[in-house]
């Protein structure tokens, strides 16, 4: 793997369509259809929870809209590999859902219902652990997951396993001391960790220029002695490819930093209003590169799917979201008698 590479030359053309016949190694048309289907489902859920927030049914949500290609592209590489463990962060809604949750499980988590697979209603939505899908995210303290991910990789190595750990964070977390500490330790011990920065240039309202004085965060990797790659995070296939290479490298040689350049389509959370700090028209321009649109165009242009099939996928996703909303809405919250459970492990 090169020490430093930037692949921001857009893999897609001005209309958002990918150049023909550019499917990388290991990727089949069926994978793209599968991931397009998951993408449409998570987008449908993502949009619904904002509506449910305004109805008072979801107390808080952080949207992944605009980050999906980065999250799903890296997930696809992890799934293909088959031996990866994930430490996502709070904006990884698409990643967490696509990793194996049903829409109903997802909705129960957002509504704080019993049966929330992450914490049984104790934490913010999709926060805690989903061990069946090999995911841990304990908290909202940004960068706290980075050192934990490194420790998890250390534990796997001690247990004689070849697991590669993918840990995700935003550009705000790049400023935390623990980001440095995690990368330093991982590099010293050549641990199989992939640091994935979903850089959308905003930490709530604070722009990237107030967060770092360098152009590309991936430049920092060289100071730890491992490769740093900046990739177009709006292109699912590019993110897949970069992650696949990173997994191979991590397992044999140690950490990799992947900076995925993404766009945040929504406000920080349902409690934020980004009109206070984002320039007018910025989000609209970003949406021209919406992975939901560009991936559909690729699938149609490449004659992998017809427009009718694309429409059918969207209709099925909407129906699943409707049903999941009803199931979660009708399900019970955790019983208050459980307040004291599991403060300690037996």
């Amino acid at each position, binding site marked *: 793997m090169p020490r430093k590479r930037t692949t921001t030359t857009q893999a897609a053309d001005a209309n958002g369509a990918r150049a023909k016949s550019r499917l990388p190694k290991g990727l089949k048309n069926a994978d793209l259809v599968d991931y397009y289907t998951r993408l449409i489902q998570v987008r449908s859920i993502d949009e619904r929870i904002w509506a449910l927030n305004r109805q008072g049914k979801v107390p808080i949500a952080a949207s992944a809209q605009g980050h999906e290609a980065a999250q799903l592209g890296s997930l696809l590489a992890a799934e293909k590999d088959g031996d990866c463990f994930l430490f996502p962060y709070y904006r990884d809604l698409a990643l967490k859902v696509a990793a194996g949750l049903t829409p109903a499980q997802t909705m129960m988590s957002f509504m704080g219902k019993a049966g929330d697979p*992450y*914490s*049984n209603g*104790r*934490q913010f939505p999709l*926060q*805690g*652990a989903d*061990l069946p899908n090999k995911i*841990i995210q*304990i*908290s909202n*303290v940004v960068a*706290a997951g*980075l*050192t*934990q*991910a*490194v*420790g*998890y*990789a*250390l*534990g*796997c190595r*001690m*247990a004689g396993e070849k697991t590669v750990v993918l840990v995700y964070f935003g550009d705000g977390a790049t400023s935390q*001391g*623990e980001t440095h*500490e*995690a990368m*330093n*330790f991982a590099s*010293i011990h050549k641990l199989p960790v992939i640091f994935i920065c979903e850089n959308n240039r905003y930490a709530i309202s604070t722009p990237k220029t107030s967060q770092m004085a360098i152009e590309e965060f991936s430049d920092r990797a060289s100071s730890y002695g491992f490769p740093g790659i900046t990739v177009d995070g709006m292109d699912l296939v590019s993110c897949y490819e970069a992650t696949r290479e990173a997994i191979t490298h991590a397992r044999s040689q140690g950490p990799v930093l992947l900076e995925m350049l993404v766009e945040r389509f929504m406000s920080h959370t349902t409690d934020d209003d980004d009109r206070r700090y984002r320039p007018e028209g910025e989000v609209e321009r970003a949406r021209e590169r919406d992975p939901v649109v560009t991936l559909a165009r690729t699938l149609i242009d490449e004659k992998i799917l017809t427009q009718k099939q694309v429409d059918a996928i969207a209709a099925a996703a909407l129906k699943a979201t409707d049903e999941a909303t009803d199931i979660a809405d009708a399900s019970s919250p955790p019983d208050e008698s459980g307040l004291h*459970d*599991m*403060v*300690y*492990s*037996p």
Partner: protein
Amino acid sequence: MAVKSVIEAVREAIREEMARDPKVFVMGEDVGIRGGVFLATQGLAEEFGNDRIIDAPLAEASIMGIALGAAFRGMRPIPEVQFSDFVWPSINQLIGEAARSCYGTHGALQVPMVIRMPYGGGIRGGLFHSQNVETHFFHTPGLKVVAPSTPYDAKGLLKSAIRDNNPVVFLEHKKTYRLVRGEVPDDEYTLPLGKADIKRTGSTITVVSYGLTLHYCLEAAEELASEGVDVEVVDLRTLTPLDTETILESVKKTGKLAVVHEDNITGGVGAEIAALAAGQAFEYLDGPVVRICGPDVPTMPFAQTLEDAYMPSPDKIADGLRKLAAY
């Protein structure tokens, strides 16, 4: 049975548990080649290798976070905080994350981790090598907190802590490391967490303490015995879970309670025990609950005069108990 120091007992416990369970490992600053600044891990790198006695970079937050992550994977890490005063950079990983991991995942994750740290003063350590940090952990649900006073207790409790499936803060009073010696059985043994130990039986006053000041309480009790005051000394050994039963039984027997610790008085362990007695043994008390504790200044200062002024001592404790006995 051989007579050993606290530090020897700690080292034996770690060595035995590492030999018993390959999942146990140590990570900290200078724990490997150096064997720890107090030599708690002396010889262990040679015996178990540098993969299990890991010299960490000088960065406490990651020592704690990495240990926590390894615990998520089922390892049994023993992160060492070189001095309790240096725990603060790691406090998010400990109080923020580790303590909430089981609860916040509804039991999906366990945190079998023992955070060892030398703590406490009376050794001319000044503001940054003397701190008492126990109250912060005592206040935090999800953590267990152990503070032994003797080699026997240190070894048995540390072995249990390592086998526990929860984050255990294991506080070793650094002044006791070589000062306090005692018999330690040659055969394997463990001591349960959450059980106090009556180190001296008595009938007139109950005094509750832990760590270094426990020994000062025993000295004060001897002094008062010559004056006809029969003091019972309860060694908490474990702050969390707190052995409320032993405390209350003793208070109900003697009717008078004093709590002694070196940590700051306000909001300390003593305050909680006073509230316990007031709430659950009110009708048995025939005197005010007395707290003989460190004053509310940041830590014991460096100058001998000021350190002495800060520290509870056998004399100060004896004075307090004398007044309580006369009440």
